[in-house]
């Protein structure tokens, strides 16, 4: 084992971090320009194989980027277009998928993978959304919920039940019958409910059939979940630093409140929770190339622990800030909002622990 970054990794981390911090400093978002920056720096190409024009960065590189992303509270969609939809596209077949992937890599297009359904909680494997074979292709009917960053996408990737299992369909966002209803999440992303009302699709719309779609989506979801964990650890890390600064500065009853032992011990417990979470990120990343069943359990275990750490660290940070923690102008609250939003993605603690239990525990 070796937890040191090599030179290349150090470089990647430093430059990604600088970029995200610069963007955060810039204040008003120029979304297009920032997305272009991501593209120019190779962040978009990072996880993809060289064969399709990617950089073959590997899971560890993505982890470093997401950690920096979380620390800087970066805002441009990345998890969805690159790690979810992008990775699914890279596993898919046909012209539609290839051109969408090419568009992603050159920065001109984005897709969004639609995972959840009404009252379906975190299960995407058994969609109520269905695709029926027609003479000319398919009719897609169903609803998806809380689709991350769908509003900047031109293509929706929609898992739907077909005879034999689940297949994946690529649906232009402006196809007749597609309706998006979008809200801002508390941390400034967007989440959309999507209705597919008998959307007519050509045969080429099925970019992964019932033999391959499930595995492709599962791999993307697990990878994105591990990346999400890395983002959370980056955010927690920074939130603790902000909190330590605050309590070392803020005075009450004649001394910095950080001199009070009860607060010191709570900050220490935050540190313990964060370092344990970081260890689980390493574990999840190391297991991303394991066989799918083990990968799924390892990633679920990782996010279960990261989620718990995030709730603890987030609520404690706000408490240690007192009223200032509640003001959204102040950074602490925004990190808490980010952590809360990420907690609800890819499974809450209860759901994830259920996955580990169903598997009979962690792989050895």
């Amino acid at each position: 084992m070796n937890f040191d970054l090599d030179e290349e990794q150090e470089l990647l981390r430093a430059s990604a971090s600088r970029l995200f911090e610069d963007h955060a400093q810039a204040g008003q978002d120029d979304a297009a320009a920032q997305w272009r920056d991501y593209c120019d720096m190779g962040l978009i190409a990072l996880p993809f194989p060289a064969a399709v024009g990617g950089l073959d960065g590997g899971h560890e590189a993505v982890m470093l980027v997401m950690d920096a992303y979380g620390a800087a509270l970066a805002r441009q969609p990345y998890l969805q277009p690159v790690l979810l939809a992008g990775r699914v596209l890279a596993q898919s077949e046909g012209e539609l998928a290839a051109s969408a992937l090419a568009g992603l890599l050159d920065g001109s297009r984005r897709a969004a993978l639609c995972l959840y359904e009404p009252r379906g909680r975190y299960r995407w494997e058994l969609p109520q959304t269905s695709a029926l074979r027609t003479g000319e292709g398919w009719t897609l009917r169903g609803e998806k919920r809380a689709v991350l960053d769908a509003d900047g996408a031109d293509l929706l990737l929609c898992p739907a039940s077909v005879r034999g299992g689940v297949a994946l369909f690529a649906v232009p966002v402006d196809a007749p019958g597609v309706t998006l209803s979008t809200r801002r999440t508390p941390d400034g992303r967007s989440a959309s409910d999507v209705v597919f009302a008998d959307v007519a699709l050509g045969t080429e719309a099925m970019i992964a059939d019932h033999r391959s779609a499930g595995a492709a989506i599962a791999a993307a979801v697990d990878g994105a979940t591990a990346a999400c964990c890395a983002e959370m650890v980056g955010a927690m890390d920074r939130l603790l630093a902000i909190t330590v600064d605050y309590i070392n500065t803020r005075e009450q009853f004649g001394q910095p409140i950080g001199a009070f032992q009860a607060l010191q011990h709570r900050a220490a417990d935050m540190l313990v929770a964060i370092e344990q979470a970081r260890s689980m990120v390493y574990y999840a990343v190391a297991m991303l190339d394991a066989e799918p069943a083990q990968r799924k359990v390892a990633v679920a275990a990782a996010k279960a622990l990261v989620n718990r750490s995030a709730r603890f660290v987030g609520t404690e940070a706000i408490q240690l800030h007192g009223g200032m923690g509640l003001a959204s102008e102040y950074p602490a609250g925004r990190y808490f909002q980010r952590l809360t939003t990420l907690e609800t993605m890819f499974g809450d603690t209860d759901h994830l622990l259920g996955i580990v239990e169903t598997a009979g525990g962690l792989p050895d």
Partner: protein
Amino acid sequence: MELQFTDEERGFRAEVRDYLRTNIPDAIRAAVREERPLPREWMVEAQQILNRAGYAVPHWPVAWGGRDWSAVKRAILTEEIDRNAVPRPLAFNVALVGPVIAAFGSEEQKRRFLPAIANLDLWFCQGFSEPGAGSDLAALKTSAVREGDVYRVNGQKIWTTYAHKADWIFCLVRTDSSGRKQQGISFLLIDLATPGIEIRLIHTIDGYRHVNEVFFDNVAVPVDNLIGEEGRGWDYAKYLLGQERTSMGNVGFSRRRLEQVRVVASGTTGPCGRAIDSAAFRRRLTQAEIELKALEITQMRVVAADAKASHAPDPKTSILKIRGSELLQTAAELMLDALGPEALTGGFGMPDETDPHQGIDARSAPLSAYFSSRKFSIFGGSNEIQRNILAKAVLGLGARK
């Protein structure tokens, strides 16, 4: 000992419940239930309906509208108000400034303010916290300098709930800075329409708009608005903080929230079952319900003991504050977890409180309520302060040598 509610107490509870459900408009109760911020008119309307039945200020002196009810009955009243999603009588009016005026104000001040305060004809907000003085209240700096018939007030208050809706503010101000920091503080009522006052909303992480900064720039306040004696404001504030503790545990509020959690968790049937079908979720909910039952009784114990005690607040009240805030936070977490990913598109924050009829579905509130719930352990004496009180005043743990 009488460890159960008496028949009379049960009867009173039924009577209150009946009155509330009959008289408070459904639209108002629905808005409260769905965590929508209420327009000012609705809050006024609700309080006036309560006031008509003697439910707004039962703890006040009878001469000013109080009822001679036992503390247990008053606690039942608040529990039912909260549980039935009725807006509470405005605490700043009825629990804070009102009792201070009743105890220390002049006859003239009582006549002028008390009926209006009880009926929410006048809306007060509270100017205690300052940027440099959170839990260390006595460190406040806002100054009031006597110039003939007026005080000139300069300074800043922060975390002022509803200042943007209020007519008046009651403030602790420094009229003398020569002595110990607890000395030289005075208690002043200030009309918010006075020139020189600026109110700025503070945006909070729950997306609501409810707290403010209030700036005073050379504001002229008639000396008639001083309550009691100059320099005794700290005593009045302590008196005020020792008032009406029948609701510190927020028992009715938590019960309503937990009931809602059970409804939502039991209702979201779908391909992977309901949240309530998860044994782990159910266990957390059950534990919260049991903790709430205990808190309900602890609340009654404090209330019943209070009735006999002198005016010094029972330090065990801090138990109610600690567990009460934790339970409200637990309820908010459970609601979030009951919803799963759908919480994200359920909406967040209430941008337009001018339209109280604005429809929102059952998914709307939880994210905002979750963020908002953090305040319960911070404001009104943080839980850290409450633990200090328990350690020192109840357990007698030593001061630092």
